[in-house]
């Protein structure tokens, strides 16, 4: 066997090993699009179009809210979780870069909403907090909403809201092998859409 062919074999093996241990490798047993399909039924929106295997576009029936929904996975030993993320893009009235994260406060019961700034102009945080406080409908929707993560970023004159809900996700176990879809309940669905509409309202004026 020539040196060139040995080198080729070794580089192919290394490539395969790198893919095997790569962080971006899809977990074994992951069925792209299946969780999105479950979520489509929970959302019950007339406009829901799967643009890619793991990405869908949806909008409210009156067209006032347009969303992108993205599936992502998180690996564990012999199991993985499939989560869905709601992405809302709103044109910004200003330039700049900023990044915020919203979460509930309280140790046993939810007592309020806290906004943490990771980057950007501090004046924006004041504006965002004032906007959140002023919009009582948004407050009422956000408080009971079971969101795991809620991130708001400003970049290239555009606000981007990324919300990951506890529902609309799936547990896929391989030992023992079973799946369980965690539904987005009717109430949570209503609060979710109300929250995203409210955030769109606030960010448009910021």
């Amino acid at each position, binding site marked *: 066997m020539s040196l060139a062919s040995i080198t080729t074999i070794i580089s192919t093996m290394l490539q395969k090993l790198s893919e095997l*241990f790569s962080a971006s490798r899809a977990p074994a047993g992951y069925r792209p699009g299946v969780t999105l*399909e479950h979520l489509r039924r929970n959302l019950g929106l007339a406009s829901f179009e799967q643009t890619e295997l793991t990405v869908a576009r949806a909008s409210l029936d009156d067209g006032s809210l347009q969303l992108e929904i993205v599936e992502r996975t*998180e690996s*564990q030993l012999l199991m993985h979780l499939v989560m869905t993320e709601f992405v809302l893009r709103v044109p910004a009235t200003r330039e700049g870069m900023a990044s915020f994260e919203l979460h509930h406060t309280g140790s046993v019961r*939810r007592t309020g909403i806290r906004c943490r700034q990771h980057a950007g102009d501090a004046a924006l945080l004041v504006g965002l907090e004032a906007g959140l406080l002023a919009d009582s409908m948004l407050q009422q929707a956000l408080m009971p909403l079971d969101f*795991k993560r809620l991130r708001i970023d400003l970049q290239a004159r555009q606000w981007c809201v990324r919300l990951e809900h506890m529902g609309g996700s799936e547990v896929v176990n391989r*030992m*023992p092998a079973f799946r369980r879809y965690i*539904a987005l309940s009717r109430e949570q669905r209503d609060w979710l859409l109300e929250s995203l509409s409210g955030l769109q309202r606030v960010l448009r004026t910021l």
Partner: protein
Amino acid sequence: MSINDRLTEHLNRGTVGFPTALASTIGLIMASPVILTATMGFGIGGSAFAVAMLIAVVMMLAQATTFAEAASILPTTGSVYDYINCGMGRFFAITGTLSAYLIVHVFAGTAETILSGVMALVNFEHLNTLAESVGGSWLLGVGFVVVFGILNIFGVSAFGRAEIILTFGMWTTLMVFGVLGLIAAPAVQLDGWFGESLVGTDLITILSLVGMAMFMFVGCEFVTPLAPDLRQSARVMPKAMILGLLSVATCMFIYGAAMKRQVENVLLDAASGVHLLDTPMAIPKFAEQVMGDIGPIWLGIGFLFAGAATINTLMAGVPRILYGMAVDGALPKVFTYLHPRFKTPLLCIVVVMLIPCLHALYLGGNADNIMPLVLAAVCAWSFAYLLVTLSVVILRIRRPDLPRAYRSPFFPLPQIVSSIGILLGMWFITPPGMNPADIYIPFGVMLGCTAVYALFWTLVVQKVNPFKPALVEDVLAKEFSYEPGKHHNDYLDHAAKTV
């Protein structure tokens, strides 16, 4: 599209190949209770245990063909529940599924909690002495449960990227030690490969060891819910199950023979008749004999990671499942409580944490209680297997028209062999020197509670006939409807009619 075409398309599609299916059938090989059962079994039974293992392999191979046929008719993620539901109705389906998974976890999960710490620390002499002085090395397993429970409460995922390394590590560890133990010069003079039996070699004794032997193979059906994800699952599934069973058997035979060749089974306590191979202490002895000082460290680290990873998987997955059931109304609403800041199902995690910890604390971490727990788990598993076999037989008789991409060969011989074997295994499950009540009473109580719950749930909550079997077509229609892009159950119009 006809049901046959849809089923064929469904069976051929998929994202998972043969290696994953094979890994699922043998992934539990390094679980601490499995290793201790093998060590004890070969210790007390020697060649008689090897014969019991052979009987168990034949029974499980026959059972595997039944599971493969069921999975080819109903390639659903519900697996055991759907097979029994279509054969015998919801009451048996709920009882069988809870028996196969929940009851087994209550027994085997507690055994894992107690043993994971014991098996790991017993390999590190100083650490073990220290652990024993503060209450016992079994508390390490309880510690694992608590630590991983707390990590999950804070939303931290451990072992996320280490799956392949860990599973590969568990495999090679056992094989390397087994093969090295076989090729090294023997430290014990043995009659035959596995030595003499301490409890006799008559038929009844061998049958009483079959229950223990079965514990090494139960779980081969864990691959069946993967059916919708497997490429060409009708072909891959039986191949993976059969090869998986044979691989586990080979590995355990090698391990058992190596252990008996390298470790003298000395009597530790004349009053109770406890020998070295009945205890976890045999493991570091074996490791040191095979690989010197590095052996116990390697094996100890292997058990430590295997135990921690198994417990973490339970802590990460089961609470979310309980939360999902509560959202669907199958469990009380209180289980939908999420921590305000971390949005983790706090109550579900605490419950999943408490079950094995309290059970282990109740048993005082006593390793003597492990074997009755393991055997009660075998009874629960066996019961579910019997229900699946009955359902497959009923479906063959009642619905011969159903498309079967895989048919169990020589029907009904494998079903008769596995059922008789399982019944005999359950009847003679108590090994010599053990009290049958320690196995049958906890199993019977748990099974009774499960049956009462199943009856209450079907009659009062679901308000359905608990004994009316579900239509295969309905179950398949539900499964197919979740495929991406399939928004209508269009195949139902063309489904095969009930005979």
